[in-house]
């Protein structure tokens, strides 16, 4: 299903950002996946609500909740990943539905009806703002429909604005300053841990000096680096002994689980060093 694939990707891309979100719309019974930017779950509820083709003041919240929950169920069936706030809304609507359908318990505040009314109000308010925004942008706008003097003459009769600096300039400057200070240049501090390469190099140097079984711990560097460095040194030296054993340069022995690990030079190294046995 090519469309859902695209929708899925789009949702994943915008997840966390919350806007614009791509989501399917349920039209009558059939779930249709359309690529359309929804500005979050409330926006989507509003779109679903418009399909009831009634005045928003007379909208059926129960029906709306059903539509939304059906959409979420369908969306999950086709393994569509939904942004978290869509799921939060679904959970809230499922709760609201249960409150509307079940007999009200005493002392429960707010009532299911209150919650439904609050949601209806939110939808109306959002709708009102969308309409207001549309009306605002159909007005004759400066620089688009109506024009100012194209060639203003250099007569600044308001002395106080000799310097053209706006609050935006000021805040922008401070923002940029902070940005520079906070991380204009990203310095990644070197990670001071013992690497296996370090340990191999170190143990190789010590090879001649460990003809007899000795605990691995005795070869570890001192603790001046702090606990984290000591732990990493332990891990690195352990890995290094395995690496050296594989190369036939050391022998390893452990008497039981969690007991000290012993290490000594492999025979030929000892031979070379001690003149034979």
């Amino acid at each position, binding site marked *: 299903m090519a469309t859902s694939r695209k929708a899925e990707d789009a949702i994943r891309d915008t997840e966390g950002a919350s806007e*614009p979100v791509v989501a399917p719309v349920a039209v009558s019974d059939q779930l249709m996946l359309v690529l359309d930017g929804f500005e979050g779950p409330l926006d989507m509820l509003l779109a679903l609500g418009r399909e009831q083709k009634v005045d928003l003041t007379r909208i059926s919240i129960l029906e709306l909740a059903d539509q939304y929950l059906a959409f979420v169920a369908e969306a999950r069936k086709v393994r569509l990943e939904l942004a978290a706030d869509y799921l939060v809304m679904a959970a809230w609507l499922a709760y609201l539905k249960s409150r509307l359908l079940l007999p009200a318990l005493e002392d429960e505040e707010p009532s299911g009806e209150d919650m439904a009314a609050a949601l209806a109000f939110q939808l109306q308010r959002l709708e009102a703002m969308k309409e207001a925004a549309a009306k605002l942008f159909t007005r*004759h706008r400066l620089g688009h429909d109506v024009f100012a003097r194209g060639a203003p003459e250099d007569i600044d009769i308001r002395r106080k604005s000799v310097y053209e600096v706006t609050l935006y300039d000021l805040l922008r400057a401070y923002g940029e300053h902070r940005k520079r200070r906070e991380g204009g240049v990203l310095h990644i501090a070197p990670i001071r841990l013992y690497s296996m390469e370090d340990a191999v190099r170190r143990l190789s140097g010590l090879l001649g000096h460990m003809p007899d079984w000795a605990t691995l711990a005795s070869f570890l560097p001192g603790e001046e680096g702090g606990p984290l460095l000591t732990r990493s040194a332990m891990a690195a030296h352990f890995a290094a002994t395995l690496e050296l054993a594989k190369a036939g340069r050391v022998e390893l022995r452990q008497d039981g689980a969690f007991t000290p690990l012993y290490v000594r030079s492999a025979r030929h190294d000892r031979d070379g060093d001690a003149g034979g046995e």
Partner: protein
Amino acid sequence: MIKEVTNPEEVEARIGKLRLLEALLFASADPLDEETLAARVGPDVPALLEELRAHYAPRGVNLARTGAGWSFRTAADLAPLLRQEEEVSKKLSRAAIETLAIVAYHQPVTRAEIEAIRGVTTSKGTLDILMEHGWIRPGRRRETPGRPLTWVTTDHFLDHFGLETLRDLPSVEDLRAAGLLDSRPVLLGLGGLADDAPAAPAPDDED
């Protein structure tokens, strides 16, 4: 409104003032307030402005009052002949347009309230863009816990949309009467009810 003057000297003085007023307003691309104009022209500026407005009303350039000031603007009915390719609003996202409307109708309004109305978190850059256009600015902090910053529209917003005052916003009275300009968050647990309190106390207001 237009006082009859017969004394020739008075007539001449008046004409001189009208010409100066005309020139001052013409020279400036931005609206000029009456106070500024009065300082240059004289105390009878309001009457002179009305006279100029009447003179220019039928012409291709009109004298308009927007926000806090007066300015010459091309006549609105010529818009179809003058209209230029949209640049500004093309770049404006739906989120930005909606957010601007919410700031305009609900001001002063906090970011959390904007988010409660829209039901989503405001992405970074939305308020930034509106501020860059010079349409919104920070208003007073709300004296509630966390002292959140509020946002309000600017005079330039009024100028841009050709509004004399905020009362001239489309349908504003109807919306207010219908109770739809209540910006309180209404549903707890519903998206976008971000806490208004900044994560850390504002560092710079200890005095």
